């Protein structure tokens, strides 16, 4: 266990060094936050009724998404892991007396947590200082707050295992484009990062309720702004747990299978 923690630590600390990338990331997140909120505000201003979400809840939701974007987005490709799969250095990883799955999971988790640590606070502060319709409102009640914190922690693990699964699929395809790209785009859309789930047509909402992607970003933040009630919140957390278990099992089986017939690329 200790060794996995140190992988995590290593990645986390290296990640914190990339300040310039973080500034650029913050700027991008702020920019997109402003675009998204402006578009939705324009929509709400020009249509009288039938809103799937209240405007101030929606705006806060969009800002929370932007602030924690680097923890939530599923379009993540770990260059190091992909490189060792492709160039055959995976052989070295296999020589270590450690579990490949846990090792990679702690690396991905470390990198993403370092990214979000550098980024979320400036975005939140900026969003809090904006004038009224664009403003992020952090006010919530204690039960919602506690539940959404639990949901956020679980979704961090959920997204890590989803991304890890993509990388394990790469061990079969030896290519991070093609199928993996299609999987990642679908995941990104169904996670509600592109547009919030309540705006989906109803059949897609039903599909996304079953799949794990929605529980990554849509669920914890909509819970926070109070768009999901407590009962659904508790059910959602249970679904998150179930999906985490399923993903870990699938990921482990696939990685074992991939290693059994692993062909070491290159020489």
């Amino acid at each position, binding site marked *: 266990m200790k060794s996995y923690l140190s992988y995590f630590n290593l990645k986390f600390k290296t990640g914190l060094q990339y300040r*310039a*990338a973080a500034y*650029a*990331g913050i*700027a*991008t997140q702020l*920019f*997109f936050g402003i*675009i998204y909120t*402006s*578009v939705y505000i*324009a*929509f709400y*201003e*020009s*249509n009288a009724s*039938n*809103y*799937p979400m209240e405007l101030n809840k929606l705006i806060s939701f969009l800002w929370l998404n932007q602030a924690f974007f680097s923890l939530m987005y599923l379009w993540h490709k770990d260059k190091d892991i992909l490189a060792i799969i492709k160039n055959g250095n995976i052989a070295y990883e296999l020589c270590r007396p450690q579990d490949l799955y846990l090792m990679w999971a702690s690396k991905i988790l470390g990198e993403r947590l370092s990214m979000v640590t550098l980024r979320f606070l400036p975005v939140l502060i900026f969003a809090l200082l904006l004038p009224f319709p664009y403003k992020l409102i952090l006010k919530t009640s204690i039960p919602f707050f506690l539940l959404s914190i639990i949901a956020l922690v679980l979704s961090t693990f959920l997204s890590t295992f989803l991304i890890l699964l993509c990388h394990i699929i790469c061990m079969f395809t030896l*290519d991070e*484009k*093609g*199928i993996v*790209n*299609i999987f990642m*785009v*679908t995941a*990104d*859309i169904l996670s509600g990062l*592109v*547009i919030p789930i309540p*705006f*989906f*047509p109803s059949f897609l909402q039903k599909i996304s309720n079953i799949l794990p992607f929605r529980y990554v970003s849509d669920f914890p933040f909509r819970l926070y702004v109070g768009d999901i009630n407590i009962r659904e919140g508790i059910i959602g957390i249970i679904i998150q747990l179930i999906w985490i278990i399923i993903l870990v099992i699938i990921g482990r089986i696939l990685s074992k299978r991939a290693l059994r017939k692993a062909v070491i690329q290159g020489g």
Partner: protein
Amino acid sequence: MSLYLKYLSMHLKSELQYKMSFILSFISQFFTFFGYYFTILCLFNKFSNIKGFTVYEVLLTFSIVTFGCSFCEVFFRGMDQFDKLIVEGNFDRLLLRPRNIILQVFGEEINYVKLSRVLQSLVILVIALLNLNVEWNIYKVLTLLLMMLGSITLFLSLFTIAATYCFITVKGLEIRHVLTDGGKHLAQYPIGIFRKGFVLVLTYIVPFGFVNYYPLLYILGRVEKKVYIFSPITTILYLIVSLLLFYKGVKKYSSVGS
């Protein structure tokens, strides 16, 4: 020009060496693109209009922008990836050759996979046009053509400006994506829906408005003035300025060494 054609055929041949990968990437590009399209359709499923613009009007705006952007990403990819040339020191190699430098930069990389996006944006353009209630005449057709050309010119200028920026910073910063991707996101809606500040920026600083908003108003018959037809032409000025800046950058360029 014949040199550029040669580059084109060369890159096509090398790309087709990996057929399966090419086809799969082509398909996955389709999915990525579908994401944007899906967003607009979903939103208009819930709302009837955005500041008076209907879904097909927005799709027309959207397709003009994505057409220009993806066209440039296919044929002028080298300019988009200019920081790679500088970082790896390969730019020195190009400078030694007695050919036009811009042309050589263009020819460095040509991304045929993104052709699928050009096709998709054309399909959406056609869908939008078929569903729009517009009385077409020669002026309006001309406006549409100018919009498409203007969009290409605009993105080429943006790529060139981003490349010129690399002369100063060496490594191309992610910030440039705010200019291209961010602009693309904003300008996929008619810019009139935004607040004044945005409209000013998108008209005078990054002139997306001249490409897909002001001429759009003419096509939709919301303004009658003929001046609006020719507004995409202003992007040529923008291109000239950006090319001048680029040449200035080339003159000052000092190699990173290797």
